């Protein structure tokens, strides 16, 4: 599974970091940063949570 982040849509809420801090971080302006494009299986639930709660719908988890 691969994570896609559309940073241009990001509203800097930081919800993704709360859901999956091993996969997402924020820059100084709060914009999300993708730390790990292909996270290990144990992080996928957190990523799915981030996809669902991102208030900008800026994150997708896609099959490869």
């Amino acid at each position: 599974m691969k994570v896609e982040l559309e940073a241009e849509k990001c509203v800097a809420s930081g919800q993704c970091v709360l859901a999956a801090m091993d996969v997402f971080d924020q820059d100084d302006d709060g914009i999300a940063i993708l730390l790990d494009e292909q996270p290990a299986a144990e992080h996928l639930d957190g990523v799915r949570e981030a996809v669902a709660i991102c208030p900008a719908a800026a994150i997708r988890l896609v099959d490869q």
Partner: protein
Amino acid sequence: MRHIVVVGASAAGLAAAETLRRQGHDGTLTLVGDEPLAPYDRPPLSKQVLAAEWEPDRLALRTAGDLAGLDLDLRLGVAATGMRLADGAVELADGSTLPYDGLIVATGVRPRRVSGEGGHVLRTLDDAVRLRERLTPGRRLVVVGAGFLGAEAAAVAWRLGCEVTLLEPAPVPLAHAVGTEVGQVLTRAHLERGVNLRCGATVAEVTGDGVRLADGELVEADEVLVAVGSRPNTDWLEGSGLTVGDGVVCDEYCRAARDVYAAGDVARWYNPLFGQSMRIEHRTNAAEQGMAAARNLLNPDARKPFAPVPYFWSDQYDMKIQAYGYLRGHGEVAVVEGDLNERRFVAAYRTGDRLAGALAVGMPPKVIRQWRQAIASGANWREAVGAGEVQIS
């Protein structure tokens, strides 16, 4: 459960539908929406869409492929008109009846209006597109209500070259939500740019020429935007057997009745983290509560209380305002980081003896996150705020 019906196809309804599938519901899943559009995002309506920076297709919350993958019985462009708890059925405007084994109510809110004809509101994509076509340079826009929505729209219209007047009945905009001093600081951003802010202005009606105030004065306008809050869409639940009182009344599990849950702007539930009933009209709550309601509906024996720290943000000019927690009804505000007058600060809010909320402007995410964490842990006010704060009210 064989058949689950989700009424409301915006952020909360979509999150509920996705969670139901992810949690293993393989029966029929009906998603009902009164708008003809696939689920789309609303916060950009008063920001990028109004500013004509984004085309409407960017608002889609999911791709067509992702939606198809949910295998939904999708009923768009048809409103729910009734519900009967005793029969376990929802009635739709097209005359059809949907029997359900489980139901999630996520019908959101609609804008409050004022008397008269011709004013704009800003809730749907249609509303936003209609207004943005009129916001050409030099046009006079009067915004009724200087809450977050009105303030965002005013900021966009100013940037588009409109002559903007903000009318607010209270002495200080947003004071009831964020406190007088923070409200004043946020308001200054409008005044510095030449937006005409008039506080203590009560609107009697929208007319063909603008807005008539309660004292009889006519405030002339080419366009009027009415942004005076919203009311929950619960009319269709009248006589349903559900308890309605400023929203669908739920317990801490978002449960309104057996096998019936509510989520998003329409849901009034008991948030155990704050020990009170609340109804939250924030984008992030819609998704979180949709997920929580879906989980609890499918797993009643392992249900979990929904105890979030509410979060919202607002973009106005160069300011990003972010707030965590429950600020309403606070008893005290203190600036705990930065400087209020530089518009780079964190303000903390006390309710009872607890840290109930924090509002930040222009602060780095790590600082804001610490305050969120303190709110989530139910921190005591004195311990959280310490001795270094500047008390402002």
